[in-house]
């Protein structure tokens, strides 16, 4: 009886508690205030411009006013434009030139400098130093290296009576020249990411490997590289997203020339908007770039997730 009474009174008590104390899982809307400042800027600076850009791309517009609605005409114009197709190719080519180079060189540098010596610390600082420079300084430095007749490269080649390759004016070399400057500039971040990953590989595994008389190559191949695989994927994703947005280096070193050979998508957008005053066309090209970057980032994300699950 007593036993039977307890559950009954218990349920009555809990019902009265439920009435007095609100459900802890219920949404408390005033908490939204904490995220409001972020949400405000996220909406005004990212979401609204995103849709505003789509809206613009459907109009004949310049910087001083939105003209008439033209539907998808700007997109049709883009895909009829040989130069737009060329700049898409250029951008992919640039990503292909820089991203693997950044990942591999960054990894090699990290492997070489991952030790507790004073020289290694100094060299880490040296290799990272270029990353703190602005794009203007970087391109200034590389223009002085590449420029014909008076440049550093021309001078060095001149000592041997040879002509230096024209990295700024040969259509086959212009993008490579920009890629060299970019790798030099951006190498610091991948190197640092790899260094931090290397330092998190547990020492015990290396100790076990050395007890097993594993060779240095074997240790690298079977222990080090598998342990930092996730960082490798991270570096690739970050760099793909960054390098797709190439602009400053191309604008300042070659202005996209010769004959558009080194013009990336962002430079095309810039020219359409600010030089031709064709804001609608520029907005349409921006949407294409947005989709391209999203596809690349998503592809990388899914590939890395699958590998993560296998591991």
């Amino acid at each position, binding site marked *: 009886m007593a036993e039977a009474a307890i559950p009954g009174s218990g349920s009555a008590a809990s019902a009265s508690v439920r009435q007095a104390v609100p459900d802890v899982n219920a949404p408390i809307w005033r908490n939204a205030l904490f995220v409001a400042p972020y949400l405000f800027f996220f909406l005004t600076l990212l979401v609204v411009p995103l849709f505003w850009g789509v809206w613009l791309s459907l109009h004949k517009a310049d910087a*001083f006013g939105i003209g008439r609605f033209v539907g998808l005409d700007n997109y049709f114009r883009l895909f009829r434009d*040989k130069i737009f197709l060329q700049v898409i190719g250029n951008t992919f080519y640039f990503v292909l030139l820089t991203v693997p180079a950044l990942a591999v060189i960054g990894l090699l540098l990290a492997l070489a400098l991952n030790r507790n010596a004073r020289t290694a610390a100094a060299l880490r600082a040296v290799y990272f130093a270029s990353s703190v420079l602005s794009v203007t300084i970087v391109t200034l430095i590389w223009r002085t290296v590449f420029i*014909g007749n008076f440049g550093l490269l021309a001078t060095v080649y001149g000592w041997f009576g040879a002509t230096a390759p024209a990295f*700024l*004016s040969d*259509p086959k070399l212009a993008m490579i020249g920009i890629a060299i400057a970019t790798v030099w500039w951006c190498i610091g971040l991948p190197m640092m990411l790899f260094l931090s990953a290397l330092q998190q590989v547990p020492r015990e595994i290396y100790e076990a490997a050395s007890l097993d008389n594993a060779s240095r190559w074997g240790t690298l191949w079977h222990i080090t590289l598998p342990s930092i695989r996730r960082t490798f994927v991270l570096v690739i994703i970050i760099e793909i997203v960054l390098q797709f947005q190439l602009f400053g280096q191309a604008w300042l070193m070659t202005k996209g020339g010769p004959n558009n*050979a080194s013009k990336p998508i962002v430079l095309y957008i810039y*020219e359409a908007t600010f*030089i031709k*005053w064709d804001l609608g066309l520029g907005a349409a090209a921006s949407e294409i770039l947005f989709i391209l970057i999203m596809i690349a980032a998503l592809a990388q994300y899914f590939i890395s997730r699958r590998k993560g699950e296998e591991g």
Partner: protein
Amino acid sequence: MTLTLRKYMLAAASVLALAASTPAMAATELTVQRFFGACDAEFGTNTDASKAVGECGIITSLINKFNADNPDVQVSVTTVEWPGYDQLTAQFAAGDPPDIVTIHHSVLGDYQSRGLLMPLDDLLKSVGISPSDFTDASLSGVTKDGQIYGLPIDNWTMLFHINMDLFKKAGLVNADGTPKLPTSVDELMAQAKEFKEKTGKPYFVQNLANEVALYTRNLYTYLFQQDSDFFADPKQVKLNTPEAKKVLEMYKAIYDNDYTTKDMDYAAGINAFLAGEGGVHLNGTWVIGDYNASSETAGTALNAGGYAVYPYPQLFPGKKAQYADGHSWAVSQKDRTPEEQAAIGKFLKFFNDNDFEWSRTGHLPAVKAVLDSEKFKALPHRDTIAAVATLGTPLPSAVQRQFAIQDIIGQEMNAAITGQKEIDAALTDMEARINELLANI
């Protein structure tokens, strides 16, 4: 509560008092935006324009002088990289344009057509400047739809800047000591060949890398000389023509035969000419002052045998002409106080009055009285280039986006001349791209 309210009222009163007192004490502020480079290290404090050399030196000194002479007006200058129109367009779009800005005559129409510039007729009249004071070329350059939209400060064109030392070595000198210049395409090729054989250097110093303007101006000049009316319709260009092909073939032959420097950008081209790396530098009126100064300095390449400068030679049997443009000060359309209007008027008047100093750069003056003055004629080399006042021909003023067109022509010409593209294909693409641009304005 009362105490807080009183505090607020006091604070508000102080803010009001400060705000009210500031305009009365400070000078009228004008924002001026210009290209022509930065040279504050050399001329940042100079107020005597007659002591300055070159575009940058002279304009910096003139604005310094204006500030010194007019304590009631404070001009703050923003220097932009040439030509600065991308930035200006963005500033206009953001509603924050400078008050006064340098704009080429060829570009005024772009901004004027969108109602972004202030018509200056009344303002110029109020400070005593009459349109009839300007040369015909300058007046027509700044007049759009019957109104004046910029204070013209000069007209400029491209020229043959000549290293006489190398010309003498090449035997390309007339009996009177003047350089022997070609009168036809064949003669140009023959002289360039002779020049290269005798001096071991290219006839031309050209900035062909990272460049569009030089190509475009060369094309326009030699199209004019063949009477090609390529912009008969300002909304549709005709460039896929035998005349344009002739010009591209000529420049391609010059390139293929190594009669020109290659892979140089603008700055490298100037350095190469000053170092005596070639005979003829194709550059504008604006370097005459600097090159003349170099030729007067012992030990320089131009001092060795002298420096001469001439209009482009007439290579074709058509109209005697060469491409020309000009610079002007334009005023943005904004609501302004009478004080600000007056300050702008003062600034424009000052530049109009000092047009002679500006013409020392090498540009042709915009003011008729200066062009006709003995003082101007006595400046070095003005006798040999005086002809450009009549030769100078701009594009029809109704042609819009002339700088965007220049980019397209420059890119396609570069591709054709350096052999990346067939000449016919380059001309077809050039025409199609420009017409696509013009059709979508």
